């Protein structure tokens, strides 16, 4: 059974069909790319998959359970985490705190225990701090733990956002244009990071991207959308030679 699956997914804004009959099935450990021209409906699809928008048609299942109508935080708990096109970090908080916020649901002490600072508070806080540092060191960012997120260089901010999403312990990670605004060097590093986290955390990844070298370089399967509809799916090589795709990207 596929990890994340959609059936007849559609979204209508007023009279406009932004997404129509979108069907995809992503398996464990798979790395899938979602591409398409601007306004093709990619981010709308992401927003439906993560509970920001309520689809007007169809169904989405995560591990066999429907997530339509669930709130974003519930979907995160069920194992789908995401990043945003325009980075959304907790800017005025430290890098470590950004990660700790993602641990929120794993920590169990109650509000009262937190106020009274019981033994459990200290234990869990100490553990969370250590885990956050260890987690950051996976990304080679442990030295930035106490830096304020907004003071990180751009590439590191992207990395932190991905790390924060991973800290929620997802089974599938949805990346919305992770290479946006990056230079070729940073993009290359990002490709390595994406590959690395897929193997390290053993998760599936769905990514939206404009940077063709990135998508072609790392994705095992690519889905192309245009005007809210899937026009092609296949391996990078198949997509490269698909006439429909070429037409969409290069014009008639």
């Amino acid at each position, binding site marked *: 059974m596929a990890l994340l699956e959609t059936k007849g997914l559609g979204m209508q804004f007023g009279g406009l069909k932004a997404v129509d009959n979108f069907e995809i099935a992503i398996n464990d450990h798979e790395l899938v790319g979602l591409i398409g021209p601007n306004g093709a409906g990619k981010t709308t699809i992401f927003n439906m998959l993560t509970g*920001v928008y309520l689809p007007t048609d169809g169904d989405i299942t995560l591990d066999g359970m429907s997530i339509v109508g669930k709130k974003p*935080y519930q979907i995160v*708990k069920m194992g789908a985490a995401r990043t945003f096109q325009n980075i*959304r970090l907790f800017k005025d908080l430290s890098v470590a705190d950004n990660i*700790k916020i993602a641990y929120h649901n794993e920590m169990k002490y109650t*509000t009262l225990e937190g106020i009274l600072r019981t033994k459990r*508070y200290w234990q869990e806080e100490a553990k969370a701090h250590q885990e956050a540092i260890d987690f950051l060191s996976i990304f080679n960012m442990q030295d930035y733990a106490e830096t304020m997120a907004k*003071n990180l260089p751009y590439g590191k901010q992207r990395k932190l956002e991905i790390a924060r999403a991973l800290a929620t312990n997802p089974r599938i990670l949805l990346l919305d244009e992770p290479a946006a605004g990056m230079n070729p060097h940073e993009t290359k590093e990002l490709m390595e990071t994406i590959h690395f986290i897929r193997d390290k955390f053993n998760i599936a990844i769905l990514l939206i991207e404009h940077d063709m070298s990135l998508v072609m370089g790392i994705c095992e399967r690519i889905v192309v959308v245009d005007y809210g509809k899937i026009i092609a799916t296949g391996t990078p090589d198949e997509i490269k030679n698909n006439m429909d795709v070429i037409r969409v990207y290069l014009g008639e």
Partner: protein
Amino acid sequence: MTKVNFKSYLFNIVAILSVFVLIQILIANGTLSRYYVSILIFICINIILATSLNLATGFLGQLTLGHAGFMAVGAYGSALTAIYLRSNDILTGGIGLLLVSIIVGGLFAGIMGIVIGVPALRLRGDYLAIITLGFGEVIRVVINNLAFTGGAKGLTGIPRLVNISNAFWIMAFVVTVLYTLTNSRQGRAIISIREDEIAAEAVGIQTTRYKVMGFAIAAFFAGIGGGLYAHFIAFLDPNTFNFMRSVEILVIVVLGGMGSLTGSVMSAVVLTILPEALRDFAIYRLLIYSGLLVVMMIFRPQGIFGTTEFSLAGAIKKLRYNQIVSPRKKVKEDD
């Protein structure tokens, strides 16, 4: 508890105790007259109001313009409870009566916070400000027109139960609770909503729940502040809880720094003493206040302390560090 934590705890407890002892000594040797003591009690009340508003506005990031409304609910709830308990000989006075009354008052305010918060917090920032403003006005008008609150004539016969000792310790308790709350995982969840609500929800924070929680706790403590006020003045006039009162509390928070409890404490001290000291210029007080607010927002919108907390232990450590390690190179401070 680690050693460092234990040390800083000890430090804070000693600091609070010494302030208390100092006040007691100054009262005992007659340096502080009754007038000065009453100012100190007002400082305690204002600290409670400001730190609680800071939770809603500075930490949660929701601009509230009706804090005086919650204060009013707490004040009337507490005053009426005390009058009831005493007239029925259930509790006749002392700290027990005070605590029971202000907690009941605080709960009324907290429940009001939930009633207002649940629907209002779904709306975006500006609208919350408007709704709380509207709520503050409605509460005032309602209290003005009810019989059991004494209406526009005001409420009299409230037991006078507050003195500097109990006001001081209640204030210390409130600030401590707010401090530990904002440094827990729940507090981080609250702060993450201020930082970016959409991102908070995307990492699994139940935003609506923590918004309502933060808002209700802020309202609860505003109610506690109102209760202390009621049992100190022993007379309540609905018009003291107007929009201007809400703004005055907001000025304290903004000046001290939204997101800094110690900032609110210090700012409350200064802004309670200042108008008393400048009595002769009373007509200019609000002019200066409001001008200050605008200037602050333009030149230092984060307030004096920003979101950082002032800690004695930290300051000393920093000083020593600077001296020993590198006298010239300053420790890079996050602004």
